[in-house]
């Protein structure tokens, strides 16, 4: 596998006041790779995405996208915001929402053209959303809206697709569907995908690598190598244990209860009673 590197983070550090949120993040992402960005609340996942989007300049280090420095509003990076809250009466069709991804940043009124329609139809079909292309967007389900947001982000032909917790608010089946969809599109089009998730289980079968953030530090690698008790314990700075139960992964904290409770709740929520507590 000798694919080009699309994203390079060189010893990135981010500090708010005197609080270090990210410290020395050093990773490379290759074209077509599917990365799960996992970590507890406040670990700096969203902050890292904002750095890659060029919305936040790192206090330390540098980053490059396809060998070039990062610019705000870079079309090489597609962004899928969290689930949106739309009024059911929002006067937009699904295709209008998606069209924003194509030319929403341009000035003036969009002139309907065959080419524009075709581009939108193409991306709608890529996310299997053609069937509700003309439906009122505010009345679609969370999973359907999520697919539109992905379509919207794909319209600029990005090299990198960033998704911030696209699975929160989705039931398990829709979550797996969205993961499969994104990983398929990433593979087909050679787009590097970075998907933020609290619970890594829906990503297990699709992600090439996991980028685990905790306490401002990160480890990246294959799931089997990173999601190990000793690796994560070192990252957290205290004893944590990785449990594998019926093909699911569960990170359980030692004495520190914040992580403990968080991941247990997430885990038990997702596999309905398969959680074991020592």
């Amino acid at each position: 596998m000798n694919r080009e590197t699309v994203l390079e983070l060189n010893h990135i550090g981010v500090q708010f006041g005197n609080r270090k949120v990210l410290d020395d993040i050093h990773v490379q992402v290759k074209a077509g790779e599917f990365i799960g960005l996992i970590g507890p609340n406040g670990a700096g996942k969203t902050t890292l995405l904002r750095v890659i989007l060029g919305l936040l300049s790192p206090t330390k280090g540098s980053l490059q996208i396809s060998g070039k420095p990062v610019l705000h509003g870079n079309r090489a990076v597609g962004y899928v915001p969290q689930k949106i809250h739309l009024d059911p009466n929002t006067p937009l069709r699904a295709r209008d929402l998606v069209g924003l991804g194509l030319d929403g940043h341009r000035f003036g009124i969009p002139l309907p053209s065959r080419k524009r329609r075709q581009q939108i139809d193409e991306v709608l079909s890529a996310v299997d959303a053609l069937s509700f292309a003309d439906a009122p967007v505010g009345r679609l389900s969370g999973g359907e809206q999520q697919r539109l947001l992905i379509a919207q982000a794909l319209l600029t032909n990005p090299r990198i697709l960033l998704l911030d917790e696209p699975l929160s608010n989705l039931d398990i089946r829709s979550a797996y569907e969205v993961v499969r969809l994104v990983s398929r599109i990433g593979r087909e089009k050679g787009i590097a995908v970075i998907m933020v998730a609290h619970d890594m289980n829906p990503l297990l079968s699709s992600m090439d690598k996991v980028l685990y953030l905790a306490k401002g530090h990160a480890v990246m690698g294959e799931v089997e190598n990173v999601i190990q008790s000793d690796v994560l314990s070192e990252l957290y700075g205290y004893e944590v244990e990785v449990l594998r139960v019926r093909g699911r992964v569960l990170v359980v904290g030692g004495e520190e209860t914040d992580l403990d409770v968080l991941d247990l709740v997430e885990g038990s929520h997702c596999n309905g009673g398969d959680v074991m507590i020592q």
Partner: protein
Amino acid sequence: MSFLFQIFQPNMLSQPFMVNAFLSGSIVAVLAAIVGFFVILRGYTFAAHALPKIGFAGASGAVMFGVNPLIGLVVFAVSGALSIGLLGKRGRHDVITALVLVVALGTGALFLVITDNYATGAYALLFGQLVGVSGSEVVEIAILGVICIGVLSFLYRPLLFASILQEGAEARGISIRLLGMVFLVVVGITTAITVPVVGALLSFSLMIGPAATTQYVTHHPFRSMGLSVSISLFTVWSALTLAYDTGWPIGFFVAAISAIIYCLARFTAKRNPITFVRSQMKPKNL
């Protein structure tokens, strides 16, 4: 026939003040409907409600100082809009809008007390007046209206983007804050030119009524805006006609007609289930 002549009195448009009222009313109707589309989309209804009253305070100040009330309206409504935009936290303007409104109303009350004999003028500004717009003001209203429509057409896409997907728009390089400010200024100017025609208390209904009504009819953005403009024009034209016939305030008719149309749309709207078109393409293998 004679009944119709009583409503549409043939000599109505031979009166210069009625021509002025119809001209300025039409401009304001078109602009208010388009602005209302975005006001509802962005959830700025409280600001849209407050700005006419803030502008009203400015108009009373202008009367006190003996200058054109339109100037007072524009200055107060635009500075009110700027304060709301500058001091409001991202996406949350309610508290600061209320504060700006209270300060402006207090100042307005003071202006009214200082200026004696202003009761009739205040009444006209609050409820709208047929003779409220002079020939030169029609020109001023037209210029401001055209500028606002121009700005809105220019900003149409980024404004829609930022209203629906704020983070996505931001990631694409759109300055959310600047865009929000410009939009609020447009709302302020729209307000300022609506008040002389419809009145400060009820001009809000022209901005919200038509745009809220069309939500029950279509979810196609262009059709929605077109329909809003038509409803708005119909509302203003009938309100002016009826006000001419009866001598009652225009604001009353605008509010009543907007409300009736809204209710008609809301309670006759069919809640069609979303239709899913069967995809022409073969299902993809996952």
